[in-house]
């Protein structure tokens, strides 16, 4: 097989600068939202003492989970030796870094005391999974950067397999840690579950690949590169498998809960009478996020158009955001059960489903994080050769996959 040629994108067209400009406006809006929240206090947001993690966290956790999943393609190439994915490995590593940057930026800017980031990086409580996550996230940057270096530097190419393996294991621990942030909360019925860590792992596969596919399609189309059907359909198949896996884990989670009498009320809330949360679960997460993509992706290869893959990826992303909204915000809205078999009422909103409505500063901050990730990706593609010269059917090696 001829060695793969990589090239930077041109990045000098008006459209490229317009893209950066648009993303820049979103980033500024995000910074504005963060400034408002920091300066006035969080009362300007929809978050409250009952719902302390809101839209920023939905976006941030989506980006962080997707970041670890975006590395999958590179892992399949380096760790599992599938040559078909090798040309995609560099972009995969880049997206892992930029998505994580966007997610962490949102998380840090939402802190009540963002100015104490240094404190967060020098004072550690090692019993806290959150503290471990801080290590895992910052370490992820170093690990993926190292991995990318082994891919870029010809003399280090031989080390890309061990570096890839290390990165793969690191991101499994990282995503397990992210899921455990919720899984370790004993006092909340929607969370207290060991299933959350592996659920987050498969979510990362699905969301990360969906974003990867969209970025790849856009980057190839806008830089005039050929993206052949072989690569695209292979990625589409893989995305379908991941979406099915997520659906399976969600089903197991809810079915198990339905068996536990103590969890009946919370299942009723999510599945039946939770209002917006129920709608987002069934229409957003299940229908749009799982069933529609499965229908689009797992049909016969020859009858599937290229647009189907892109549309499916979009649906997966929308469904993923809905899933995280239900998980994070719905999980907090549901009242904590302190007094079994009693109706509870208080001035602090005990015993009732807490109200939450996303506010402009929150959504701006979250969107700003997404824009930051995409802007960094666009700039990086221009500065370094991340994209292969061609992904046409004749130029890739499908047999080894």
């Amino acid at each position: 097989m001829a060695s793969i040629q990589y090239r930077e994108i041109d990045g000098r067209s008006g459209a490229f600068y317009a893209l950066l400009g648009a993303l820049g406006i979103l980033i500024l809006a995000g910074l504005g939202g963060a400034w408002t929240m920091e300066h006035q206090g969080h009362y300007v947001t929809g978050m409250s003492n009952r719902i302390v993690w809101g839209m920023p966290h939905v976006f941030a956790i989506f980006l962080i989970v997707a970041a670890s999943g975006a590395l999958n393609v590179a892992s399949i190439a380096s760790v599992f030796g599938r040559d078909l994915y090798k040309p995609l490995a560099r972009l995969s590593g880049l997206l892992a870094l930029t998505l994580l940057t966007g997610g962490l930026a949102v998380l840090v800017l939402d802190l009540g005391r963002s100015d104490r980031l240094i404190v967060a990086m020098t004072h550690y409580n090692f019993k806290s999974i959150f503290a471990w996550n801080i290590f895992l996230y910052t370490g992820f940057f170093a690990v993926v950067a190292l991995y990318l270096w082994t891919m870029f530097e010809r003399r280090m190419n031989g080390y890309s397999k061990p570096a890839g393996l290390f990165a793969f294991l690191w991101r499994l621990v990282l995503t397990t840690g992210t899921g455990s942030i919720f899984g370790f909360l004993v006092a909340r019925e929607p969370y207290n579950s060991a299933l959350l860590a592996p659920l987050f792992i498969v979510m990362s596969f699905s969301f990360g690949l969906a974003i990867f596919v969209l970025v790849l399609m856009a980057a190839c189309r806008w830089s005039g590169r050929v993206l052949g059907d072989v690569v695209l359909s292979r990625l589409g198949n893989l995305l379908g498998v991941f979406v099915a896996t997520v659906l399976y884990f969600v089903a197991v989670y809810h079915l198990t809960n339905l068996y536990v009498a103590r969890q009946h009320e919370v299942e009723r809330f999510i599945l039946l009478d939770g209002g917006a949360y129920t709608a987002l679960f069934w229409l957003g997460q299940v229908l749009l996020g799982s069933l529609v993509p499965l229908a689009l992706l797992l049909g016969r290869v020859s009858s599937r158009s290229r647009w189907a893959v892109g549309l499916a990826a979009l649906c997966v992303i929308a469904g993923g955001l809905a899933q995280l909204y239900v998980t994070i915000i719905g999980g907090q809205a549901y009242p904590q059960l302190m007094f079994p078999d009693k109706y509870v009422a208080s001035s602090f909103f005990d015993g009732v489903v807490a109200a939450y409505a996303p506010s402009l500063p929150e959504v701006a901050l979250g969107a700003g994080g997404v824009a930051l990730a995409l802007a960094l990706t666009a700039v990086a593609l221009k500065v370094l050769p991340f994209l292969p010269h061609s992904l046409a059917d004749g130029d890739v090696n499908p047999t080894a996959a």
Partner: protein
Amino acid sequence: MNPERREFLGWGVAAAAGAALAPGLRLIELVQARSPQEAASALQRWGLLIDITKCADCEVCVTACREENGWTGQGRTATDPQWIRKVNLRDKRTGYAQTLPLMCQHCEHPPCVDVCPTGASFKRDDGIVLVDKHICIGCRYCVMACPYGARSFVHETVSGQKADVPRGKGTVESCTLCVHRVDRGETPACVEACNRDGGKAMVFGDLNDSSAEIHHRLRTEPSSQVRPDLALNTGVRYQGL
């Protein structure tokens, strides 16, 4: 036995006796108010006992806490902090109604302390669970983790703080068991107010001190924790739940 060995044994017995007695000697000292130069000690464990059968429609404890600690709020109920609140219960089947004050339970194994990334949420040696607001980054993970919803996030700029109770925007706070009063040898404001103006439902004291009223009552009368299934060994106990 030669004289040196006898002497050695004598000193050994004296030392052993001293080591055995010393903790007891410490205990007697600590029953009185701790002096400001003394650190909080693990030999004490502060606790509250609340007999909710004596709790009527009264909110004296809430008002007193608000006054003492200065968390008056801005009239925005969703985001205003509440260090203590009255919770009204009604049995789903029998309709039996009760009310109780709920605040930080000062658990022996606090989930909020486990999850805090910087260690700002911590348990002092004498059992009081506090937030070190110097290192709190305002991530609100402890608010998520608390089984009792005891923690509040400060959503707005604070001014006019009480001198003994610093509090500020962007950090998390909760009932401190009036640590500034306890360290002076007084009782929390809620307990004082309840005993003065309320139903006399609250008892404060050192759970480890066998001469304390709270210790005696817990040993001789039934009491319970909120969410005993979590095995947190709370410092706040209730009667009549």
